[in-house]
């Protein structure tokens, strides 16, 4: 046997400084460039589409608000043409699923694929160290998705702007409450926050389930449950609702409930209908057109109020939109960080 040549080993290698974080940039890019590209193409294409739709929506809105004299047939046409637009996107359902799509198809496979194919045994035995590897990937992807979602929500909020105009009600233009379920989630804070939450749910589900397809399914199920619970029950309690006996609650308010009282007692549905029927006979026995109907209804409300009835409305005023956005964004961010921390903890402690 010939003399062996041994490479000299660095003497200080028992006290190693960790490898710099920037090393993970190239790794994350090479492994996830298709996910990055997919999200960019999806959001980019939708943004262009929204921009095209939004341009004509904004033009129609400008035409309707600038029209003089208001109420003339020409102006009524302009108002109608605005109101007939955007029925496609006005309830936001199409974009509603974007966060969970991104979360399920980028977040869930991130670790599940490593576990499913066994490549974690490669990745976790490299010099970088496994929990730092997981942290770097989760932070890089989570941040990139949050930024992409935020950019997209800029286009979204621009698109929906005409529906929140303060003068819409007076002009007969369609007005939406920014709290409407399906719109509130698309806000400037909430859209990005829900995207990050979906990604974090996906990452943890992937690490727990360790298989790509079941992890995607679990992510969609958990996200849908959470979004439903928040929209249906939790959100209205961020601040205690206001209660008013004023009949003119603005359309931009989020109305949570309405009831009538007479002499301090709450009226039942049947008692209320009786009161309505007899009142309508007095104020407007014959109603033909749609405009007359609205007028008759309002006259009837005033008539009832005069006769000792009180209508109560429980609502969230539209001025609370931004506080609500930040409250929801804040707790979603906290939840996401918690889920990501749990994921990294699992990577660190999981035995092969």
């Amino acid at each position, binding site marked *: 046997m010939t003399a062996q040549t*041994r490479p000299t080993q660095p003497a200080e290698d028992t006290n190693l400084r960790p490898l710099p974080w920037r090393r993970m940039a190239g790794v994350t890019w090479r492994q996830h460039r298709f996910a990055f590209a997919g999200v960019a193409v999806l959001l980019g294409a939708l943004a262009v589409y929204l921009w095209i739709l939004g341009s004509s929506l904004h033009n129609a809105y400008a035409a309707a608000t600038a029209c003089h004299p208001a109420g003339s047939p020409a102006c009524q046409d302009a108002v109608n043409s605005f109101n007939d637009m955007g029925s496609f996107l006005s309830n936001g359902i199409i974009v509603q699923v974007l966060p969970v799509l991104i979360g399920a198809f980028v977040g869930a496979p991130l670790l599940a694929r490593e576990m499913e194919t066994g490549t974690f045994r490669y990745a976790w035995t490299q010099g970088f160290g496994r929990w730092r590897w997981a942290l770097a990937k989760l932070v890089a992807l989570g941040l990139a998705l949050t930024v992409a979602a935020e950019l997209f929500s800029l286009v979204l909020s621009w698109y929906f702007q005409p529906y929140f105009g303060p003068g819409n009600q007076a002009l007969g233009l369609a007005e939406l409450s920014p709290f409407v379920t399906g719109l509130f989630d698309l806000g400037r804070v909430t859209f990005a926050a829900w995207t990050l939450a979906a990604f974090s749910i996906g990452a943890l589900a992937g690490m727990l389930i360790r298989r790509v397809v079941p992890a995607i399914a679990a992510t969609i199920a958990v996200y849908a449950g959470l979004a439903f619970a928040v929209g249906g029950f939790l959100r209205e309690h961020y601040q205690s609702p206001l209660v008013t006996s004023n009949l003119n609650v603005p359309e931009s308010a989020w109305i949570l409930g309405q009831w009538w009282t007479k002499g301090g007692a709450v009226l039942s549905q049947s008692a209320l209908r009786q009161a309505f029927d007899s009142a309508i006979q007095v104020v407007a026995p014959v109603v033909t057109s749609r405009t007359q109907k609205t007028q008759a209804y309002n006259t009837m409300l005033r008539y009832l109020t005069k006769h000792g009835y009180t209508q109560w409305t429980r609502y969230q005023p539209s001025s609370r939109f931004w506080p609500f956005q930040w409250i929801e964004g804040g707790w979603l961010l906290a939840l996401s960080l918690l889920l990501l921390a749990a994921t990294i903890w699992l990577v660190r402690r999981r035995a092969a």
Partner: protein
Amino acid sequence: MSMNVLEASGLGKRYGGTWALRECTLEIPAGHVAALIGPNGAGKTTLLNLAVGLAAPSAGGVTVLGGRPAGSPAALDGIAFVAQDTPLYKNLSVADMISITRNLNRRFDRPYAKARLAELGIPPKRKAGKLSGGQQAQVALTLALARRPRLLVLDEPVAMLDPIARHDFMAAVQAAASADGVSVLLSSHVLTELERVATYLVLLARGQVRLAGEVNDLLTANRRASLEELALSYLRETPTEVAK
């Protein structure tokens, strides 16, 4: 060279209620090609997973490369591990795998990796998933050797390979061991392939070490002519395993 590349004391690993490895006390000196042999389910993979830090011990402890705790940054820095079935990112090209491995490690000899793959005729642009099993094993071995490890750990590296690929792979391992002074720890149940390369032997059965020592010493002491004969004589003492 007195350093031990692996030291285990009272090492045990339990999955659920069953011990995959029990009471394992072992010292493997540097400078060997150490073969870890035993029937399926003997605890070979478990011992290797513990040594590279993929699994945490349920009892006892294990250190590598002269006292570094298994799985610690210092240990990971000096060990290159090729897992069973040589997992690679199937949708990435060989060049991408080189780039990723380089980024994830302090040392990486890229010219060596490129030269070795060129020598093997493996095109760098080819997706890892499109390579043959033998080529994938060679890529995984190349990535591991380019890290310039002091200890190379291989889990059943040739189990999935055809005889020619098996021969080429073991020749590459032996070349790395003799030319670069890399210590090697490999598990296998293919005894004939180990015959030519192994200089140290660890025999596991039913989660326990049955025999450990330098191959030449063991053969002399047991009066056996070959490693295969020696291994079989010990494995026959535990008849249930032979039945498998």
